[in-house]
């Protein structure tokens, strides 16, 4: 199984089950949940099924491309189903079969793992899904996003693409995975994860552990925050405002990887990100509400 084949199969599977296929959001972020397709999509009453791949950056996990299991950036396949369907676990199990896992030969467990994203004012309950002892997915029923109760509730499924691919192929080193095959007039050339990503891992790890200018990052953090509030307050623009919050979050992650944030400062910094994301979420919900009411007034279905 190649990385791209796994992604294609999952996208096909979820598209066939009534999901929009989204695209990664072009800003650095720590998790697929931060993509506006999820963050804003999980709020409000509108039915919303979407699936997409999201590169997730975790500066503290960088290992210079030398650790066979941990990387600065990995791929998440993210699925949001709102409202959560009654057979959501069965759907998920079918998706494993679509990936080529014959569950008659494996051990599958859903073990409690509640999810919380303090910078997003979001939490949910759910499980880590264990296949033969390995966590292959996170499964969450969102209870709150942006500090607001979710009605209806979305189910979120997150697949760790590289891990699943390693597991399915029995490969012990992430860089030995095959991304896909390139066919030219001269033949077929398999391309490894190493070729596509190892140098990037090395440079990004070096950046977050050594080269990042900490003073600059602190200044950027302040500037993004100011910019975000300006966009939201002066213009009511919650999407461009939210982008600034995403940048704050990543800047914070870089500082954190360097140990530049003390334990006492930490909650305060997280709260500053959360204040902005939650304010953006409220602005979005207010606008949705106003649109739904206007549509009702005109007798147009929402």
């Amino acid at each position, binding site marked *: 199984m190649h990385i791209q084949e796994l992604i294609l199969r999952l996208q096909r599977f979820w598209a066939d089950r009534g999901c929009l296929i989204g695209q990664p959001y072009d800003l650095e972020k720590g998790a697929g949940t931060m993509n506006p397709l999820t963050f804003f999509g999980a709020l409000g009453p509108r039915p919303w099924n979407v699936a997409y791949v999201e590169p997730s950056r975790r500066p503290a996990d960088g290992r210079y491309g030398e650790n066979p299991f941990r990387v600065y950036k990995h791929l998440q396949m993210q699925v949001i189903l709102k409202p959560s369907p*009654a057979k959501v676990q069965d759907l998920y199990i079918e998706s494993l079969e679509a990936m080529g896992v014959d569950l008659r030969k494996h*051990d599958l*467990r*859903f073990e409690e793992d509640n999810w919380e994203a303090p910078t997003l004012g979001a939490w*949910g309950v759910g499980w880590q899904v264990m296949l*033969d002892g390995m966590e292959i997915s996170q499964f969450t*029923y969102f209870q709150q996003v942006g500090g607001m109760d*979710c009605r209806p*509730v979305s189910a979120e499924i997150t697949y760790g693409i590289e891990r699943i691919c390693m597991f399915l192929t*029995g490969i012990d080193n992430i860089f030995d995975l095959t991304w896909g095959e390139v066919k030219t007039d001269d033949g077929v050339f398999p391309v490894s994860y190493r070729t596509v990503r190892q140098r990037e891992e090395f440079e990004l790890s070096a950046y977050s552990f050594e080269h990042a200018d900490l003073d600059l990052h602190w200044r950027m953090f302040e500037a993004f925050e100011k910019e975000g509030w300006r966009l939201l307050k002066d213009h009511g623009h919650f999407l461009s405002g939210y982008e600034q919050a995403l940048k704050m979050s990543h800047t914070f992650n870089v500082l954190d990887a360097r140990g530049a944030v003390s334990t006492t400062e930490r909650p305060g910094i997280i709260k500053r990100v959360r204040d902005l994301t939650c304010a953006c979420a409220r602005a979005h919900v207010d606008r949705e509400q106003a649109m739904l009411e206007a549509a009702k007034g005109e007798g147009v279905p929402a």
Partner: protein
Amino acid sequence: MSETRSLLLEIHCEEIPARFLAPLAVEFTEGILAFIREQLQVELSAETFYSPRKLAWRVKGLPAAQADQRETQVGPPRRMCVDAEGRPAQTGLKFAEKWGVGFDQVRFEQPAGKKEPCAVVTLVRTGRPTLDLLAEALPRLITSLHVPKAMRWGSSEFLFVRPIRNLLCLFGGDVVPFALDGVSAGSTTWGHRLYHMDHPQPVAVPGPEAYEKTLEGAGVVVSCPERRQRLEQQLTALAGAAGGRVVADEHLLDTLAEIVEYPTIILGAFPEAFLTLPKEVLVTSLAEHQKAFCVEGPDGALLPAFLTAANRPDDPEGFLKSGNEWVLRARLYDARFFFDEDRKQPLLERLEKLKQLTFQRELGSYYDKTQRIAALSGAMASSLGLDGTDGRLVAQACKCDLVTLMVGEFPELQGIMGGEYLKRENAHEKVWTAVKEHYQPLSADSPIPASSLGGILAIADKLDTVAGCFAIGQIPTGSKDPLALRRAGQGIIRILFERGWNLNPMAIAALALEGIGAKATRPAQETLEALEAFFRDRAGHQLEQAGYPGAVRRAALAAGWTDLVDLKARCEALAIFADDPRFQSLAQSAKRIGNILKDEAEPGELDPARLREPEELALAAHLARLEAVAEQDQLLRGLAELAGPLEAFFSAVMVKCEEPALRAARLALLHRLRGAFLRVADFSLWQ
């Protein structure tokens, strides 16, 4: 009782967190049994079953219907209900109408407490079928369960622990008709997911008694104790096959039994190269990350093998074994990365970094704490006649592992990692052992530090926490003890007590407070008083743990507790006499002495020449002998022998007599006696 039937209820959910299963099972059991008691007037017991997706109960012996209820209603006096000719009057007719009976069913009787005959009717309320009562009560009992982390799902407002996907509810052969959040109860359920891959239809449960057997047939062992037992048997057998024994972990075994529906143990291996990691790291990493047990050889050294549970009966193609091995390799690779990274810098070089790590907002950083522990353990070592230098060194080192990668990943390895790193830096054995041990005792039944230095460091660390928190007003009250200060305090007392160290807890607490200095927000005197009460309670608790009876504890504590060595010796001696009836008599006399002396000024010296009655002379002679005794148990024997003479004294002698000199002599005698008692115990509290 005529016909009885069994009730079976199963709530089938998406996977319920293991930690909620038992509490929910117990709470519902109480609810359903209380309901049965109230409505059906029978006292029954319930069987509980649970697995990751199921919570189930069975109650046997319910009557099929409520008993008929007879109740009597009393109305107005007869003279108002019938007229002079004996015909029904308006009031009488209205009374009959009110209770829905004809006037001919109204009787006239004189009920207790009434002065004349009154109208009386007896109503028979037919008992309702139990099935109906259950259909009404079950939804209420289920929705009123206390769910600590309740959730919503889909578009519903319903709240429960996890989404409810099926309800099975039988009363004998009948389905109890009720529904929850759109799910109607029925006579079928779902078995193991694997089973239903090949049998896509729900499983029919023929009756409450067939429940476990039906589910076992569908791949679910629904009794948790049964799953635990099967796991335990397989663990023992497979560890033996691997040439060793399981490193026991009861908590992990409980968890495994709760997270599988069909229990099977998988034996796997990991590369021997990882055995260079400290044993604690391997045990913790395997348990935390992989819910796996380690296997140790006869010499206690780990083998490169692990055991974990799977949720299916077999491993047809070896995927379970290879999968778990794969994950474990990744985890151990990480653990070794942390271990190698951490050792690139000597442990003590991290001391500066502790300045960035807050211990407690008002009390400063871990660096500040380290300095206070150093001073305190140095002083304690000196007063115990030990070398204070080591005390100061271990104190500097003991918190450095808090900023290592390994402790960041596994907080429960704090102390242990510090010790392991120091050991590998060739620190002196007593230094690394002390660091390793200084969080002990971890609980009431786990060991205290084995080394003296470890004991001193453990006390200094805990005492700094306790005294510091008291000094800023963080004092445990009632059930509120968020910083676990009672456990810390208990640890201090237990180490002193078991080690037999002659250190006055209040004296070292005062030293600790000096160290806190200006960081305190409360007056030192107030803090010391609070600490005195706190540690006295801890000492009392320690005596209780050590198994001394209540009378011994109360009497011994009241005679002083800060010399724990002496306190222990006195308790030991008192315990020998705990059942001696003479001590009961002594307690009576001690109380009497207390009452007599209560309103008196401090008596002068005893002048034995003033005494004249034979009983008081005998008592004085006893007392003189007693005061010369130094041994605790001899003293107690002497005290016990005093019971008779004291009784005789009180029956023959009037203490507060008219003659001032004699009275003074008698009071002085009693005062001296009380003094002799208090060398051991306050016997007025002996009961």
